[in-house]
């Protein structure tokens, strides 16, 4: 498995965990006393840390580690959940998100985390100086790695008595110098394992540094243990070597007489040393307290037991490319099915017909399953908005509540991927231009807190996404003036326009109604981009508003992109498909009803002037059909604009599979793709948006 595949999983899982953290943090803000939520966040941060460290993203690992410490304090009730604390944690999450994004786009995920680290540490009550002294204290407490051959160890009166007594009872006493691997992590546990192993073999009467210091990792790499045992030196050696991360073991038998002499000689000196050691030891302990509490172990395990995480769904991860391939293969199958159906009806063989019918049913079911597999809940996109609204409303000094309705509504993955940014724009817009400041709202007799509703729901073959706010609404006059000023429309145009059409001017390029340009929105670019993005997905954007009450932006999107409903038409003996979403209606007009206006053929259709577009001219169709007295028209729209496409004949409505034209034919004017019909003919799919200017 290659590094890049790891990376993919790493990024996927990191994003999942970040999302979980974000969601849970927002929950925590509402229920600051719910420790289950803190545990959930802690778990996500912990997993992130582990993954980050494994991939060698140190900044990521360090930052999550620090965040974890703060969360632990909260969990243990030592830190209160205040907005300030939440802000810092949110900032940290932002930083982590940046790193993951950087990694996803090929970077090394490094980032300047000094500032945020300092903030997190200040929450933990750690000051950097402490760490330094602590290390110094530890260093002196630990025995220095031996230079002489003999293991240095001194025994006090009591210990010497024990030693000589056990010697009499036939025990051997060993001084054991254990040196840990320098890469050892969790040294305390390692020491514990050594102790445990040795206690199986005999009795430990002494260790230097003390067992307590060892457990608290107040030593460098080596320590000395004195053991009373019946076992041989080599047996003991073997036992210890079984433990991992042990660099070396040195065992020496204790000579009790020698030790007694040594003691006398050293007594005076040792006395002084012991005093010093004690002083430093207590000092170190005091300073270490805050950080020790932060990883206070016992409580961690007990609250961990309480964890009742979310239910796990059994899923497998499949690369979206594979699903695309599956979809493609299936589409081929649908085309062949069409062929088969036609052949079987021509041959009129009963058995063949039955089989083909069966196959049709099965492929129908298959189609549903494959399409469903590509469907994802819009939650994917929606769940980043609560965070955004939170920070944005703080930035703007507004009070806004975001309500999300129908987050489980499903949409094709391809569409999900595209709608994120434009939705961000629309929501920002609602917050910036829609919702008023608390003062204004109170003055208007509205509740201080504004409400933005984000709603998604199914309707027929479409999914609707709506963004509704109870803000100021859109000022029609302002739009009209601005539109005139910017030359987007003329006076004449305006007179004929409905309210809806006027609101739609918001989406025209080069238009902005905000008097003040803020960081958030109002640079006059964007809303037209929003509209274009949705339209390229086969979507339609509409706006409705009531001044003073609020506005509603509604986006209609197709359920899926690859299989679409079309109207098949014939133009000069070639077949074309026109997406049903673009069609207003079909009509037949007599030639005498066609007028010329500004060098353009138009008709008067239901009181409106509709320009005609001759498809045979546009597509340079070689074969002309006989002239008829009337035109067959397909009236299509793009936003509010309409046009009549002139075709030779209308064939009917079909479900077709959209195929791209491939890499050889890019940028073909007004053709968005092709499809293969049941009889094997190819029909080009008309991109009506390009035909309407």
């Amino acid at each position, binding site marked *: *498995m290659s590094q890049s595949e790891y990376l993919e*999983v790493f990024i996927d899982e990191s994003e999942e965990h970040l999302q979980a953290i974000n969601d849970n943090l927002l929950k925590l803000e509402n229920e600051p006393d719910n420790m289950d939520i803190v545990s959930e966040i802690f778990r996500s941060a912990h997993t992130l840390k*582990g993954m980050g460290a494994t991939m060698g993203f140190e900044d990521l690992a360090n930052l999550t580690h620090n965040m974890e410490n703060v969360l632990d304090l909260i969990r243990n009730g030592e830190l209160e959940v205040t907005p300030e604390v939440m802000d810092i944690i949110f900032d940290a999450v932002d930083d982590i998100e940046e790193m993951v994004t950087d990694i996803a786009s090929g970077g090394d995920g490094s980032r300047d985390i000094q500032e945020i680290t300092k903030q997190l540490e200040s929450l933990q009550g750690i000051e950097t100086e402490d760490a330094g002294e602590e290390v110094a204290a530890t260093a002196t407490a630990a025995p220095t790695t031996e230079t002489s051959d003999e293991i240095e160890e001194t025994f006090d009166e009591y210990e010497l008595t024990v030693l000589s007594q056990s010697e009499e009872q036939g025990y051997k006493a060993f001084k054991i110098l254990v040196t840990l691997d320098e890469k050892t992590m*969790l040294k305390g546990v390692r020491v514990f*394992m050594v102790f445990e192993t040795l206690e199986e073999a005999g009795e430990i009467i002494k260790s230097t540094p003390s067992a307590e210091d060892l457990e608290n990792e107040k030593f460098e790499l080596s320590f000395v243990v004195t053991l009373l045992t019946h076992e041989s030196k080599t047996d003991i050696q073997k036992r210890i070597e079984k433990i*991992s991360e042990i660099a070396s073991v040195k065992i020496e038998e204790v000579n009790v007489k020698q030790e007694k002499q040594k003691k006398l000689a050293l007594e005076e000196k040792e006395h002084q040393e012991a005093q010093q050691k004690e002083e430093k030891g207590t000092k170190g302990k005091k300073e270490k307290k805050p950080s020790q509490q932060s*990883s206070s172990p016992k409580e961690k*395990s007990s609250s961990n037991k309480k964890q009742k995480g979310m239910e*796990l769904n059994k899923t497998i991860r499949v690369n979206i490319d594979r699903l695309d391939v599956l979809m493609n293969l299936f589409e081929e199958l649908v085309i062949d099915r069409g062929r088969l159906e036609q052949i079987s009806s021509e041959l009129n063989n009963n058995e063949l017909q039955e089989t083909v019918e069966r196959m049709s049913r099965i492929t129908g079911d298959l189609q549903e399953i494959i399409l469903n597999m590509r469907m994802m809940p819009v939650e994917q996109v929606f769940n980043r908005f609560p965070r955004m609204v939170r920070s944005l409303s703080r930035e703007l000094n507004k009070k806004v509540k975001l309500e999300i309705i129908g987050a489980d509504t499903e949409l094709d993955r391809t569409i999900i991927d595209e709608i994120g940014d434009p939705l961000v724009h629309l929501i920002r817009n609602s917050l910036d231009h829609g919702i008023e400041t608390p003062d204004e709202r109170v003055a208007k007799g509205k509740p201080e807190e504004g409400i933005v509703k984000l709603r998604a729901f199914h309707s027929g073959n479409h999914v609707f996404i709506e963004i509704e706010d109870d803000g100021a609404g859109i000022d029609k006059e302002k739009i009209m003036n601005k539109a005139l000023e910017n030359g987007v429309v003329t006076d004449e145009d305006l007179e004929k326009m409905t309210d809806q059409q006027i609101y739609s001017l918001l989406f025209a390029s080069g238009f902005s109604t905000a008097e003040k340009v803020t960081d958030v929105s109002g640079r006059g670019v964007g809303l037209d981009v929003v509209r274009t993005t949705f339209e390229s997905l086969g979507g339609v954007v509409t706006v409705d508003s009531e001044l003073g009450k609020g506005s509603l932006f509604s986006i209609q999107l197709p359920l899926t992109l690859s299989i679409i409903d079309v109207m098949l038409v014939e133009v000069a003996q070639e077949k074309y498909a026109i997406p049903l979403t673009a069609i207003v209606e079909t009509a037949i007009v007599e030639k005498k009803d066609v007028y010329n206006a500004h060098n353009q053929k138009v008709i008067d259709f239901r009181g409106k002037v509709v320009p005609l577009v001759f498809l045979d001219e546009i597509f340079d169709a070689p074969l002309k059909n006989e002239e008829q007295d009337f035109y067959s028209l397909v009236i299509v729209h793009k936003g509010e604009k309409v046009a009549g496409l002139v075709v030779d004949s209308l064939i009917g409505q079909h479900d077709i599979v959209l195929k791209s034209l491939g890499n050889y034919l890019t940028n073909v004017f007004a053709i968005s793709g092709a499809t293969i019909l049941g009889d094997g003919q190819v029909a080009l799919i008309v991109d009506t948006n390009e035909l309407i200017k």
Partner: protein
Amino acid sequence: MASVLVVDDAAFMRMMLKEILEKNGLKVVGEATTGDEAVRLYKELNPDLVTMDITMPEKNGIEALKEIIAADPDAKVLMCSAMGQQAMVLDAIQAGAKDFIVKPFQEDRVMDSIRKVLR
């Protein structure tokens, strides 16, 4: 060839570990994502070795370890922990885990530990 059951809730970690194990001639016979699953799979597969993550949703690694040891006192369980889980690792060792490895995993470190546990 020794058989291993890999337990971790993060697919990433399982993948990482699996690669290290398989590269060194061990056979990963099962993967579990929760403590409950680990206990169930242990009984079903009876692997020579279990690598057990500590932090997992629902049932954590230590509880799963205890259940496995209760069912099979000779079970060889290797705990996987991250920095800062000292106490939990201690708990695990006391509960009968044979050794522990610390994330981020280093291949030589992991294999050293596994060889010692399997010996």
